[in-house]
């Protein structure tokens, strides 16, 4: 019983003692500085400065452009506006033939990252397969035609990651400067039955023909869920008949122009 009481008393007394840790910490807290230091040179008695950046490639002092394996890029995109004109084809529904013509414009935040707005108009029509099909089953009731939904345009935004930059030899006669990029996009495809949200993934390359221009080839894989329009049954002609996933493969070839001063 004595032990019980001791424990209780000791517990109550013990916790009443003020915290040494706090007292000490408070005592040693530095007074808040209200004045800006007048000296321009660092403290001659020792000042904190980041030395991690000079433990390797000390000459660069951590500056990105002088740390990389390629310095003084001949064909630089960093902090430049770009403008593209391009045309191409899109492989989508096999009964539909699509040709595209478009423009895009954007900005390169660095040599490696850019953002652009993309717009293209699709010149769509029926494909040779559809034509053959129609010719073959021209006399059949309810046949001779497939249900399709023609894409009319695409508009969206795209993030460009330029991962590879290098020099290539063109049959040993000329040096080509090459940039490979990946694309992640988000936009909408306007079709005959409406506009559909279309995410896209792509890969492309550009070959510089000068400091301000490059030939650009892109491939994009795009997906959207579309509503099909009835084209075969006369009773419901022009009516929506259900949804399907559309997976399109788009290839574009064009010219890219870079605007902005070299760093």
């Amino acid at each position: 019983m004595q032990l019980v009481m001791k424990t209780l008393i000791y517990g109550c007394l013990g916790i009443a003692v003020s915290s040494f840790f706090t007292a000490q910490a408070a005592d040693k807290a530095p007074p808040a500085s209200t004045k800006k230091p007048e000296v321009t040179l660092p403290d001659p008695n020792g000042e904190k400065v980041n030395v991690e950046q000079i433990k390797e490639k000390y000459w660069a002092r951590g500056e990105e452009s002088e740390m990389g394996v390629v310095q003084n890029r001949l064909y630089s995109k960093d902090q430049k506006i770009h403008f593209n004109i391009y045309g191409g084809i899109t492989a989508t529904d096999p009964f539909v033939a699509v040709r595209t013509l478009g423009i895009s414009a954007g900005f390169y935040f660095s040599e490696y990252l850019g953002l652009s707005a993309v717009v293209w108009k699709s010149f769509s029509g029926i494909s040779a397969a559809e034509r053959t099909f129609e010719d073959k089953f021209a006399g059949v009731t309810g046949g001779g035609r497939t249900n399709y939904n023609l894409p009319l345009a695409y508009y969206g935004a795209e993030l460009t990651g330029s991962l590879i930059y290098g020099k290539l030899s063109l049959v040993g006669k000329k040096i080509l400067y090459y940039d490979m990029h990946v694309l992640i996009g988000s936009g909408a495809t306007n079709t005959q039955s409406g506009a559909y949200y279309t995410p896209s993934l792509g890969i492309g390359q550009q070959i510089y023909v000068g400091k301000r221009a490059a030939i650009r080839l892109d491939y994009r894989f795009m997906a959207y869920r579309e509503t099909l329009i009835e084209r075969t049954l006369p009773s419901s002609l022009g009516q929506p008949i259900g949804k399907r996933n559309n997976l399109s493969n788009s290839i574009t070839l064009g010219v890219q122009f870079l605007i902005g001063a070299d760093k």
Partner: protein
Amino acid sequence: MKTDMRWPSATVSILLTLTMPGALAGEIAKPKVANVVVPIRAEPLITVAKSGFSSSQNACTGLERWRFGPNVFSEWREEMTKLLSGSMPVWGFVQALGLRRQAQSVEAKVFSEYWVSRSLLNGKLKHIAWNGFSVVASREPTTETVGIQLAALDCLSQLHRRYPTFEFPERVNARIRNYLSLAPNDRQKQIVWEYAGHLLREQISRGEERTTLNATLEVLKGAGVHESLGKGLVAARTGNHTQTLNQLEKFVMNPNIPEVLRIYEDTAHVLMSRAYFASQQFDRSAEQLKLVKKSSNELARGLSELAWAYLLQEKQSEAIGTSINLQQGGLRHTFTPEAPMVMAMALNEICQYPESLRAVDTFRRYYEKPYRWLAKYLGTGIDSRPELYSLAVQYLKNDPRDRRRTLAAAPLPALVPNKIGSEWTRSPLFISHQDEINLLIESRDYTRSLGKSGANEQRKLAATIKAHSASIKDKIRMAKKAMKPGQDLPASVRNELASLRVELTFYQRFRQGAPVWRVVLANFEKNANPTKSKLVKKINEDLLTRSQRMLFQMEEIAENNQLIEVEIYNGASQDIIWQNAHPDYKDLAKGMRDDHDRRSGAKVWDWGKVAAAATEDGGEIWEDELGSFKADLYDNCESKDKYLKLKRLSFAN
């Protein structure tokens, strides 16, 4: 013993020798108050040996594992687990002090000392932790304690690797042999060898006597790569080229260089190159220099030496190419005044006189400002010039991109030219000493946060105890009413009382830890500024020596350049006379040049134009081309010889 730069071992000694009379002895049940989450790990942090003594693996790293002997009781093992799993360092600190007071075996006592230091290390108080580990490692090792002491030795090595300015304590150094003889297996011997390797390199940099170095080398006998690196470095210091090459060759050719020694590979290549150069094996010297990593701080000096090696091999095109490398991209900021001189000499050798003069001019253009700045600075009285340390820090703090703006704003000598600033700050002494200064400044914040977290824990514990006491009081009162005379309290109440006692014990440990903490903090505060001042003083001395050397080097090169200019003009005037005497030479030489272009075009890929000077609009610089660059310049002297041969043949026919 070099303790002046370190935290006084007295701090840790006081800390570790404090004992608490009448402390609770024996094992204590698992506390319920520890507010710690133990993450699940695939591998247990701690295993218990049925016999034997405590030992660890990967001490002071995130992979630290312990195997405890039976002398370290379960409570302490669990608390250590919590520390290693990321619990608050202050908790580990007070628990470790508790063990220190109660330890009944030497093993437990030494372990508690290690634990205190380890907690402080977790709290980022590396100076104090260093001294704690030093105290542990400086004890005479015995079979009972050697496992724990080797862990401390390992921690010293780890800390030294990160902060090379932390000097190894003499009292520990004196015991390395004992550690080696007591180390039970190769893994533990590696710890000793690693320590000895660090020690040897420290001794070399301090300029210790050969006998001292030999004594350390003795410990490294049979240590494989540690031994070959150590011997190679000592041989390089004493100028024994054969031994340097033998040993460092063994080191770099070893396929199993441990990670800790990988950072010395570039140093080994540079030293081997110098040894080859001194033995006039210039081709091999060049080979070694080409192996220096492109990200290495040795690269700029390595390229400058490579240009020399090529020139002495009469590979003028390579010498010129390598010199051009140093005038482009980021490397143009480095202090390598010999490069344009080597380039001028190489161009003169191939009778490219106008280009040779341009190379001489390049030196003037890029080194005039650094020269004038240094001459002005060193010519100013000590009292009226700013400290070099401040200037170096200012140089580092300036954003390189803002340099042009700053140039216009800052008057000399406050602004340091790039070539000087980069040469100062690349100094390993500057980097390591500044690292420790940073640590000292950061440690002040860490002490405060550690103090605050200790106070918070203590408060939480107090609140728990208060609540617990109140609830037990009621339970006892109720139980007493129901109890018959002579009857004991119910088991549930007794258990709760036991639990409260544990809480109180922990609370008491916090209270007892607080004064020790204050001693630690006071000593830290007392020593921080003097230590910082000593570090700054050493940096200033180093920077001054470097500055004087740079000025001297530039003066010497300027003189050499004058001689080269004389030679260029001499060669050029002779060339004019010679060409006047052989009027048909020009046409013949043009034919030979065209022929050369056709032939070299078949073998060499032309990657485009490169500017010979930093200000020119040059081509890209690809890191892999550094040191492998070859200028495509025609040897004019050679064409004269060919012309004369052709003339002789036509006369003979």
